[in-house]
């Protein structure tokens, strides 16, 4: 062995040459399994990252749906309460029964004028009916009260009421000759219809104060005298008294409606002949109703400004194929044409991200793929300004919450478009002459090329501020962007709005 010794440099080079040309290292699936575990532990998985976006969106959707459900329940309650009060109003015959039990043998004609302030606000026609439903005339000539079964039979009461109504109409026609009599009735009904306090209203107030007083403690004060009936009976009764009592009894009955146990009420009335404070409450309610009307009739805010943000899920074709959410951020303006009808517009900067495997949908210049098949998948990333013009109608308007439907058109101004092509060639294959992607900017604008549909809920958070949640659907009418594809976007607009004075 007389050959030359290897220097350090030579030795290093020798080692390097061999070690830098690895052989036989093949992909090891078990190594990847370990890698996956490590990734999962570190939460760096791409799927979890994209899902993180969804969570707040889903939560918001559920909250708004839950609220909607709550509103529905609440509204049903309200309706049923109205029904209850109506039912009670049919039981306004009760004063008759009471009078019966009292065995009053006055010269009073027994009659009831009924009114229901609740109904006043809800339904004017009912009100006027009830207001002018004055009498159940029970054998006034003999001054003996017909005895009706004390136990309240609702059906019987209803019958009585109907009788009363029948009589009433005839009574009114009969009494039409007597101005003194008819006029106050009209005034009453009009005031009860929720209009601003009039003279008639003043009279009501006065009369209310006297509600139970004017009659003897023994007699049933709440049984109003209907002058019509009286005149029919040939009895002369003071007009003022008539009014007072009639109206008074009406308000008393309102009290009944609030405290639905009918029999209890009868007891209460026996025990307390003093003026009933609820009369004032009812008056107050009437007044407040009329105030509300007044407010509603004042000019409403016509303009509102808002900022909006939304996740944006865009796909080509099926809506459930979305991959990653983009985002919408923008400003909006709303103009109310009518109280419930408005036009909304604005400018919304949108990031639309979508992947598509429907390469046929994607139009390219001839020869773009250089004679190869197109990519297996296209990943698009577009920045778009969306200018919507929508018509919005409030289908239900509550004191604080309202629900609306909206439809209209959008224009898309495509600021930047970027498309990455994935050919699925296998990792070692060369792209060759295939394009890896495409980018364009400010080339494609689509005026009114998109239609919008949405529904939402608006909730006032202060006098002039409100928030809105509005799930939306946007479909392009034709192809948009460089690839001329039809896009569908969905998401939920979250709005913060400010009403301009």
């Amino acid at each position, binding site marked *: 062995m007389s050959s*030359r010794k290897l220097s350090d440099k030579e030795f*290093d080079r*020798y080692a390097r040459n061999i070690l830098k040309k690895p052989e036989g290292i093949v992909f090891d699936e078990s190594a990847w399994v370990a890698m996956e575990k490590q990734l999962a532990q570190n939460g*760096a998985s791409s799927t979890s990252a994209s899902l993180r976006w969804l969570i707040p969106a889903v939560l918001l959707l559920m909250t708004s749906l839950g609220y909607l459900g709550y509103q529905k329940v609440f509204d049903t309650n309200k309706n049923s309460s109205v029904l209850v009060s109506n039912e009670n109003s049919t039981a306004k015959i009760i004063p008759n029964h009471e009078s019966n039990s009292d065995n009053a043998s006055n010269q009073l004609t027994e009659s009831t004028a009924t009114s229901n302030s609740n109904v006043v606000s809800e339904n004017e026609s009912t009100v006027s009916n009830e207001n002018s439903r004055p009498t159940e005339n029970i054998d006034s000539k003999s001054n003996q009260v017909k005895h009706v079964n004390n136990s309240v039979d609702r059906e019987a009461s209803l019958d009585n009421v109907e009788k009363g109504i029948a009589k009433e109409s005839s009574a009114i026609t009969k009494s039409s000759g007597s101005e003194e009599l008819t006029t106050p009735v009209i005034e009453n009904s009009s005031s009860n219809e929720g209009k601003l306090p009039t003279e008639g209203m003043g009279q009501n107030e006065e009369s209310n104060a006297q509600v139970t007083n004017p009659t003897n403690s023994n007699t049933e004060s709440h049984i109003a005298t209907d002058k019509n009936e009286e005149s029919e009976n040939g009895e002369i009764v003071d007009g003022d008294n008539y009014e007072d009592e009639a109206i008074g009894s009406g308000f008393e009955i309102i009290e009944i409606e609030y405290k639905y146990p009918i029999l209890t009420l009868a007891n209460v009335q026996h025990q307390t002949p003093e003026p009933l404070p609820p009369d004032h409450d009812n008056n107050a309610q009437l007044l407040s109703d009329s105030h509300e009307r007044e407010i509603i009739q004042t000019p409403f805010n016509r303009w509102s400004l808002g900022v909006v943000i939304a996740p944006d899920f865009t796909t080509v074709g099926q809506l459930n194929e979305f991959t990653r959410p983009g985002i919408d951020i923008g400003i909006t303006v709303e103009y109310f044409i009518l109280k419930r009808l408005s036009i909304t517009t604005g400018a919304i900067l949108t990031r639309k991200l979508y992947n598509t495997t429907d390469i046929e949908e994607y139009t390219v210049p001839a020869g773009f793929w250089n004679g190869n098949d197109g990519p297996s998948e296209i990943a698009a990333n577009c920045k778009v300004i969306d200018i919507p013009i929508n018509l919005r109608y409030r289908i239900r308007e509550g004191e604080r919450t309202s629900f609306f439907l909206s439809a209209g058109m959008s224009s898309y101004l495509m600021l930047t478009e970027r498309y990455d092509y994935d050919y699925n060639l296998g990792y070692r294959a060369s792209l060759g002459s295939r394009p890896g992607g495409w980018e364009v900017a400010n080339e494609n604008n689509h005026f009114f090329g998109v239609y919008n549909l949405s529904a939402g809920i608006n909730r006032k958070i202060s006098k002039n501020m409100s928030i809105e949640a509005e799930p939306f659907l946007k479909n392009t009418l034709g192809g948009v962007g460089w690839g001329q594809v039809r896009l569908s976007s969905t998401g939920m607009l979250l709005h913060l709005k400010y009403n301009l004075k």
Partner: protein
Amino acid sequence: MKNKVNILIKDCQKQKQGSEKALYEHFFSYGMSVSLRYTATYEEAVEVLNDSYMKVFKTIKNFKNDTFKGWFRRIIINTAMDHYRKMKKYDFLEGYDAGNAEAIHAEELITAQLSYEDLLGLVNQLTPSYRTVFNLYAIDGYKHEEIAKTLGISVGASKSNLSRARQMLKNLLKKTLDYEFSEAIG
């Protein structure tokens, strides 16, 4: 080829589903060729590689206009250094005496035609500190100053470690060559 790598990287940056595995698989062989040199066993090499990939996936968003392999190799070497520092306290052979220097002759090497696997097996037998310094200097082209800084030792220590590492490797190589020679003749 470069385009394909770029697409792989872009997919990872966009957190596209399956992109991580695609990248992992694509660079597995290359990554292992680096990590195997710095470690004693295959399992250890996979550990270093996976830790390196973790760093890659976490920081790939910031990866721009660089050759991926170069970037990836630096990450693997840094990760291997982390492992080396962890292993150091168990490194009882730190003061291993390289023994008498055995001379290696060029002809021997040419005749023997050692394979990649053979040489890698020898490198794996080096003590961690020798292996690390030898790899950094002889294979990956680091300078003594850089090695000293990376390992937290003096430049002198780096130089003496390197020369002892070479000596140890030569001795191991000589044994192999002698064995192969004896096999060949006998």
